[in-house]
């Protein structure tokens, strides 16, 4: 099935880079580097130049912190979405929000995708996606409340739980009127999960791909990488790319990333190893 993200369509075998653009003063990785709107636009310029097909704009960091209400969240992202839309008509604009109210405002400003990192916490978000013809990312959080950390969460089978919840969310979205070709599922590494859960989801990602829904993975510099290698934020790129390669081999379609160029290389390489993409230019031994 062709993937349709708002006004943009992608072939069945296309892999997509979704570059993270934070409109926050306190996100874990960039620590406010793009809090200033002009710096955020420069970040968009950079990731577009690096080949990102999607930008994922977020106004609230995932971790606990100062409460950000919907008005403050909108003030951080809505006008910015409009500026990016005007500057890059061909770019897919995703907004990382769980709130329907924010979703509506960003769709009016030109967003193509609502990336609901908190797994349907606001039941009306699907209606907004349906109304605007937007794409929807359906994540698994194990029922976690937005902006909370996991505490002694356990699953009988984390992969079965992730598949069950994301597919149910996807079906609820379609029932609400979201186009089936615009729905993406995401196991949501680290969200409602300990490191063992995220490693198992990575190892068994092929089971999510086998559902037939396009799979998005958000691995970039996360704690499961840091804990696995005992490395702080800032030193997690090789581990992130290793997890990326495993997910690419399994068939993940969208990669939510901080480092676009490096991830693109890894995904292309793994996709070619899997036999889904020809080499860019092969002549060795074939002259």
């Amino acid at each position, binding site marked *: 099935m062709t993937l349709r993200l708002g006004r943009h369509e992608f072939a069945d075998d296309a892999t997509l880079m979704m570059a993270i653009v934070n409109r926050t003063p306190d996100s874990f990785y960039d620590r406010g580097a793009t809090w200033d709107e002009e710096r955020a636009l420069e970040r968009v310029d950079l990731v577009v130049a690096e080949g990102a097909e999607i930008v994922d704009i977020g106004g609230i960091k995932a971790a606990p912190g100062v409460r950000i209400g919907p008005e403050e969240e909108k003030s951080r992202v809505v006008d910015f979405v409009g500026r990016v839309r005007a500057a890059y008509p061909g770019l897919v604009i995703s907004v990382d929000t769980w709130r329907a109210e924010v979703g509506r405002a960003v769709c009016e400003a030109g967003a193509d995708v609502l990336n609901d990192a908190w797994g349907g916490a606001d039941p009306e978000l699907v209606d907004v996606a349906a109304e605007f013809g937007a794409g929807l990312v359906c994540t698994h959080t194990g029922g976690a409340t937005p902006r909370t950390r996991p505490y002694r969460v356990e699953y009988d089978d984390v992969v079965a739980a992730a598949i069950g919840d994301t597919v149910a969310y996807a079906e609820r979205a379609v029932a609400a009127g979201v186009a089936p070709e615009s729905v993406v599922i995401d196991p949501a590494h680290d969200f409602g999960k300990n490191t063992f859960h995220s490693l198992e989801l990575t190892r068994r990602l092929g089971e999510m791909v086998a559902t037939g829904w396009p799979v998005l993975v958000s691995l970039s510099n996360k704690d499961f990488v840091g804990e696995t290698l005992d490395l702080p934020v800032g030193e997690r790129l090789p581990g992130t790319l290793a997890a990326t390669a495993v997910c690419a081999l399994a068939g993940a379609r969208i990669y939510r990333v901080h480092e676009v160029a490096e991830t693109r290389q890894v995904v292309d390489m793994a996709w070619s190893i899997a036999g889904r*993409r*020809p*080499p*860019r*230019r*092969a*002549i060795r*031994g*074939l*002259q």
Partner: protein
Amino acid sequence: MTRAVLVPGTLALLPEYASIEDPVAELRAACLRAVGWLGADVTVLADQQGARVAEHLLASSTRTSDEPSYLVVGNGSARRTEKAPGHLDARASGFDSDLGRWLRDGRFDEVAALDRRLAQELWAGVDPIIELAGVPDLSVGQVDYEGDPFGVQYWVIRWASQIP
């Protein structure tokens, strides 16, 4: 009128070795132009690998004339440069220069008398080309492509003969 075309046995021409960016786009275009000039009924002169290249080029072209035709798959030395598959052999340049001149000029008696041992040492695929020399009265060649982009000497050449 008999028609004959020479193409190299470049495996990169095969669809199973296709890249996103075609590394032999210019060569491929020349091959397809020349092969498209052949008649519908084509005799292939090639080794086993070359026959696959010929089969693919023939399948990729539309040929309607009834001229008896030959498609020859062969090439010069693969030892023309330090980066060439067979590394540099100083004799390759002279060998290819002679062979190229004879092919262009239609001097097939000299092609037939090629030093096969030297050809083998230079990694030149010439046996089918020597076989072509048995076709009588081939004309002067029309060169569609001549080059060695990867250290292997390629030619795409057409010949015609007045004898049916």
